[in-house]
């Protein structure tokens, strides 16, 4: 069910929510978090809502979508409530503010009365993120702030900005996309021989923030020289090589879909390693509500990696 409420106020909206709850039963009862999505008319709002709803199937929540409308307009708030079949496992409240109501401060003001009592708040900027997410008026309301460096105009600079502005609770989807890569590498090192890693090479598209982050992570965990190269030109991450005395471990994904894991003395293994859709990444983010120290350390190690041209697949 979709209820449109043009030119309304948050008081009316809250009253409508209670009314809907009495009519149709459950709604916000039992929801364990509020998920705020901040967009403006430049990003595809429907796609973002779709991903949020999909992710919320695993974590039923209240989704508040803040759409910042035209700034040069009369003050006005349009709202929409979606429940039941139109909202998956959650309830969706779309707030579209115009004129003074399109400012970040006004957005935060509209969000506060809509937050679930006591429940954690997660905010996601599907497009351009504020320069310092933790100090953004909406960002300040949240326990966890999700950005996405890959969709920004200059992903590499966006990542540097993340490192400069990091605060506990920050996270970025460029980091989430790496989880399977990181898990495979960590599991490969769970097995003997337990040789010291001497150096690492990470290769990927020039403007792939995930590649940079993986290099940063390896650098922060292994404290060995890590080189970031830019040979594989398609599909973000391309390859990782961990060098050690007994022979390197290599994980190469040439086509953006299937990876090959090579270890000395063992057969090559193929592994499904497609780029994760946004909804899967969001579902993973909603699972963790504590701060992510590993991400912080990967960010901090970004300036310790060396950048070069040699392909990761070639021998030194």
């Amino acid at each position, binding site marked *: 069910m979709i209820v449109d409420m043009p030119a309304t106020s948050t008081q009316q909206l809250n009253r409508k929510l209670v009314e809907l709850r009495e009519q149709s039963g459950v709604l916000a009862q039992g929801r364990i978090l509020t998920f705020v999505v901040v967009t403006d008319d430049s990003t595809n709002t429907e796609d973002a809502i779709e991903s949020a709803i999909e992710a919320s199937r695993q974590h039923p929540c209240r989704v508040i979508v803040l759409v910042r409308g035209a700034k040069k307009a009369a003050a006005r708030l349009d709202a929409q409530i979606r429940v039941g079949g139109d909202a998956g496992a959650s309830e969706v409240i779309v707030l579209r503010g115009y004129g003074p109501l399109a400012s970040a401060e006004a957005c935060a003001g509209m969000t506060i009365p809509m937050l679930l009592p006591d429940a954690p708040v997660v905010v996601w900027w599907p497009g351009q993120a504020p320069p310092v997410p933790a100090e953004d008026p909406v960002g300040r309301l949240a326990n966890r702030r999700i950005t996405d460096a890959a969709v920004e105009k200059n992903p590499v600079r966006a990542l540097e900005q993340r490192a400069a502005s990091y605060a506990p609770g920050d996270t970025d989807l460029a980091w*989430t996309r790496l989880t399977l890569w990181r898990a495979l590498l960590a599991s490969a*090192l769970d097995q003997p021989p337990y040789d010291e890693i001497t150096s690492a090479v990470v290769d990927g598209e020039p403007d792939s923030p995930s590649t940079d982050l993986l290099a940063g992570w390896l650098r922060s965990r292994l404290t060995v020289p890590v080189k970031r190269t830019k040979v594989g030109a398609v599909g973000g991450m391309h390859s990782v090589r961990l060098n050690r005395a007994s022979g390197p471990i290599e994980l190469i994904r040439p086509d953006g879909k299937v990876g090959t894991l090579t270890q000395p003395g063992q057969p090559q293994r193929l592994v499904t390693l497609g780029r994760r859709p946004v909804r899967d990444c969001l579902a993973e983010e909603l699972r963790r509500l504590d701060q992510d120290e590993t991400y912080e350390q990967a960010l901090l190690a970004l300036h310790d990696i060396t950048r070069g041209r040699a392909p990761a697949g070639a021998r030194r």
Partner: protein
Amino acid sequence: MRYPLRDPRDKRLPRIAGPSGLVIFGVTGDLARKKLMPAVYDLANRGLLPPGFALTGFARRDWAHEDFGKVVYDAVREHARTPFRQAVWDRLAEGIRFVQGTFDDDDAFDRLSDTVRELDEVRGTGGNHAFYLSIPPGAFPVVCKQLVRSGLAGQDNPDQWRRVVIEKPFGHDLRSARELNAIVNDVFPEESVFRIDHYLGKETVQNILALRFANQLFEPIWNANYVDHVQITMAEDIGLGGRAGYYDGIGAARDVIQNHLLQLLAFTAMEEPVSFSPQELRSEKIKVLSATKLVHPLSETTARGQYAAGWQGGERVVGLKDEYGYNPTATTETYAAITVDVDTRRWAGVPFYLRTGKRLGRRVTEIAVVFKRAPHLPFDATMTEELGQNALVIRVQPDEGVTMRFGSKVPGSTMEVRDVNMDFGYGLAFTEDSPEAYERLILDVLLGEPSLFPVNAEVERSWQILDPVLERWVEQGAPQAYPAGSWGPAEADAIMARTGRVWRRP
């Protein structure tokens, strides 16, 4: 430094099983098709299986690898929990093998041994193999012997592992359980034996520990000062159908109480473990099971029944005696209820009622902790006429969650108090798709994580508790009949009525 990329604070990083393979005996069975194969695919889909994972089937059918692959494919398409993805399937399918043979066929096991060795080379399973015995326990000795003879069970290389997974029934009384354990332990050391009790893989069962030990709200009243009694119920609405012949001589108590219900009791009644390490958890479970005793006289504290024809949910169903393949003179029970005490200071005087049955009102498993009445009610009798005892109900399945039942004032000018429910639904608060029990358990086998598997001592102790009841029932002749679709025989109500209590309608 070992594991340089691991960090306990890095909670995103899943534990992927190391290089390994799974060999399933009895792949043509229902369990393999409906649970095991789909669970393997779901694990692969979640990225938790190692690259190069191998799945080998062993059965009598005359199949080629591809035929077996097709069987797995169909099982996955029909029963998997997660969406089908061709890329994941393709990787999994590369590692599927089939070996045709019977359990007494030396050649077949030699071929299996060759297959496994070939997988080590081609797929890189690294000599790590789990053998899942989805077969009747009668076949355990011969299979174990074959595994030794063909060298499959050998564990000489410390970097490699061989594990065996067995399903209930773990024997049919204490003596047979000991014999079975001896046979298995002769080949596999106890730490390599994984006994599957799929209930322990369920999120709600693991949540009992979180509910009790992570909260301050419940534990202070989780004792004889406040708890009146505990009811643990596992009811099924299905009958035996074609399994009637197999069920003959087993019965509800052996099939369910010995394993599932006593394990649920252990989780409900145990003391707080020092830590969640497998050893600590087990020692607390063994401790509480050691303190668990039957309440006597058994003639008044136990009940059994056999379903007769009746109406179940709009369907006319036949009684056990008319099920196909059933021996009409057999005295096997389809309903069993027992009363036990847990002789610890915490639980002194609190009876635990355990019941299970087939063809009952609906399918439900739950643990109900029923509290004492408030010691003093400042209301007169008419005000609290409709107030029952407070209860905390852990719904294990279906509709997983927790219900609290307490009194509340009925709106109006008079003071009337009536029971109300407060509900926590797992599906509402968290995830619609939490992993299937078998996914968790198979992954734990491959990781060598034994927390959720009962050990020898627990199995034997459970038989020790139950054996006197079984012996008594043998002498008693035929069990009482109860109509299908009801909540059990009158005898069962009598064991509660004896102390002025009643069964909860789940």
